[in-house]
């Protein structure tokens, strides 16, 4: 078996382990706004150059609603919103994210009132999940779509979600849930 671990991952991304602690980057700070909260991360201490955004969000900042499935940008589980766009957080290095505004699944619910985002409520109402592992990523992609296009066609919904791997096959109920929100937006 070809070994593929984080060390290999660094090599593939052209990063040597020693670069993680060089003084050149050690003093640089990364500002990341996550769900409205500003985080200052010190490179070399909080963030290594090989840390993906998914890793930082989960392991360093504790946003475990971000799910890592394949860690290779091909399953969609780690999707978050970056400046409103749905991105695969396992394919982005945190050091590239200075000044970015990130929304994870934890950021959709109204913290004060406890009110859910209409998409979250629709996913509950339609039981649009089974194991639920891919659900945070799918909801965030759907949000990015509806924010740009409040009344997408079924085909547009499918196109937007094409990169999301759902092995339980909740696709049909996911589409219905998203359509129910889209219709309200019309």
């Amino acid at each position, binding site marked *: 078996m070809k070994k593929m*671990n984080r060390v290999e991952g660094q090599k593939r991304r052209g990063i040597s382990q020693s670069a993680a602690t060089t003084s050149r980057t050690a003093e640089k700070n990364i500002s990341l706004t996550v769900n409205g909260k500003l985080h200052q991360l010190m490179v070399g201490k909080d963030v290594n150059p090989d840390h993906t955004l998914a890793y930082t969000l989960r392991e360093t900042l504790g946003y475990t609603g971000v*799910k890592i499935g394949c860690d290779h940008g091909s399953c969609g589980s780690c999707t978050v919103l970056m400046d409103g766009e749905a991105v695969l957080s396992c394919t982005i290095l945190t050091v590239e994210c200075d000044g970015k505004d990130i929304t994870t699944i934890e950021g959709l619910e109204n913290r004060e009132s406890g009110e859910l985002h209409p998409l979250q409520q629709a996913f509950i109402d339609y*039981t649009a999940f*089974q194991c639920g592992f891919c659900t945070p990523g799918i909801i965030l992609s759907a949000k990015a779509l509806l924010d740009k296009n409040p009344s997408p066609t079924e085909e547009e919904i499918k196109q937007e979600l094409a990169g999301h791997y759902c092995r339980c096959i909740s696709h049909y*109920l996911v589409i219905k849930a998203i359509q129910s929100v889209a219709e309200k937006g019309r």
Partner: protein
Amino acid sequence: MVEKYRHIGKATHRKDARAIVTGSAKYIDDIKLPGMLQGRVLRSPYPHARIKHIDTSKAEAYPGVKAVLTYKNVPPWIGGIPYHRPVLDSTMRFVGDAVALVAAETGESAEEALELIEVEYEQLPAVYEMEEATRPGAPQLHERIPGNVFPRGFRPIGEKPLQEIVMGDVDKGFKEADFITEGTCGYENIPNPLPPEPPGVIATWEDQEHLTIYTASQSAAMNRNFHQPLLGMVDMRVIGTHCGGSYGTKNANMIPMVHAAALAKAAGRPVKVYFNKEEHFNAYSLRLGSRIHARVGIKKDGTITALEGEWLVDTGAASEMAQVQIAVGCGEAQLALRCKNWNLQPKLICTNHSPAGCVRGFGGQELKSSLLPLMAIAMEKANLDPLEFFKKNYVKPGDGYFWRDGLWWDYRGVDFSKAMQKGAEVFGWKDKWKGWGKPTAVNGSKRIGVGVGVHGNADIGEDESEAYVKINPDGRAVLHSCVSESGMGQRSAVCKMVAEVLNIPLERVEITAPDTMVNPFEFGLVGSRGTYTVGSAVIEAAEDAKRKLFALAAPVLGAKPEDLETKDGKIYVRGREDKAIPWRKAMGIARTLTGQGRFETDFSLCNCMMIFAEVEVDIETGKTDLRRVVAATDCGQIIDPLVLAGQLHGSIGSAGIDTALFEETVLDKDTGHIMNCNMIDYKWRTFIDLPEFENVILETPFPSHRFKAIGVGEVAPAPGPSAVLMAISNAIGKRIMDYPATPDKILKALGKI
């Protein structure tokens, strides 16, 4: 009269829905214990090799490393059926087999340490083909498995476990046949069910005698039930986390569990072993390979007079419980194919690829996908409509079968031909079926074809379940049941049953965590057993609690217990709801009442799933599109329509229908490496390519439990592959007997390449 229920049959919110959509649901990688180390595995680059020399000294000295294990210092735990799979061994039997284990403060340190382990291998010849593996002189995988053929049967499932189908007199049966056909069909693409969440386990030893396991499992208790003996009967507490998909694979979870437990023991700290996706592809639970050569005797009216053949089963480098899968597959074959004269001989073989494991379909999908195309040859010869053939030959009340325990069971369920017929009507079978090898429609180079497959399982009543229902004086109830959640919504379904029996709002029923310490015995959510088996235990426990409540309330209300009713936490004499008293008036506030329930194995009921498939094949390119699927079943009583719909849609996923079209694990038979061990090269269906999908669900009351329901989830994918293969064969007018039916195979069948 159909009983009207307050909760049962209605679409209700999953109890864990809010946690899932807000990201607060805790999966295995979301759990961190204080002092927890990360475990990593050094994996074999060779399909078959012996470790000549291994030096771990540099790895042990690497900063942050707390334990390094090889075959030399690992605990002597050994698993598999029969015992043949140690935690680590000096022989590697597939690419990805575990060579050494490391636990370190961080994953990075553990991975660096793996690089520092020096191993010298002696490469050994490998074998990948079942027939080659059984020839004299073939490379031998296990000392305990002479000739690479596993011993048959598995005693714990019965005194005389089913290991073959032998009954009647096949010679006599063939003499009675109008037609005799013969053929071979292989379902050998060993696809990966590939849950989105990789497998993972956290182990922590409280002391030498107490091991706690956190497991992302479909059946948390199975981790204890199966593996406690391997670990010298230590007190093993198992706690299930949310599980990001399983499809059978994450049941007993042996490999990550023993790796984590061994490392945690060596390091004296909690250890998490969480596979990455490439390890998931290379070293975790593939489907069994299956190939059947069989002769079929059939009459003009569709009566099967004889079935004789050999079933070769490839379990790869180890057997998790393939003997049980064979037993269940043999039982299931009899459900779908009523025949008096059988002689089907399975042979379980090991080869040098990543081991097969428990997978949804559990021997049955593998057997049906190979056997039903052979039945199709016979049906074609007799010019029979496959729908009518399946309606005629599926088990009916008064029939019976030998089940996995080797015993004969008389079937006492419903006749499924009604559901099959209803499915056919919704699909439009009558108009679309044009005969064998005939397309439904031709449009330029596009050929449309239809096919149908059937499958069912009598596992809906298998094994034991226990439950407690504790009622509190405040009108609430807690269900103690060791049911896990890997997507089937069963934890919510059993709460619903308690709420129905106690006639309280669903929000007033909670269920304990799947924790073996606080719950009574539970076998696990294997097969489709949740609704009938777990449900029966839960219902009995709720009724028992209610009985105890009424016994206390009767003197307070001056009535007999049998004249009492309860609603929303109040008790009243039937017809006198205005005089209701709250539960606490009957119980007092310093009391709980606990009811108990238990279910014992019952194989006399089965489920059934029929899949109709419509494909469009482009005969210029060989590309096939799945256009439409209709899934037809009878479940007795729907517990939750949306959850059930999801289970049936799942026939496309979990290495199901699409194993007929494009899903396969591609093994390089020169090097033993899997060529497509990533989620780009391993093909999966996206949102864009969804077929139209309709579910046809009848509700004919079953003699099961209070709600007359049975489970059907597990069987949904199994009839799919053979249905699609039949549809393709009809579309192109050439028989395809090999999975998946990729464009090259179709063009080859058409004589174009």
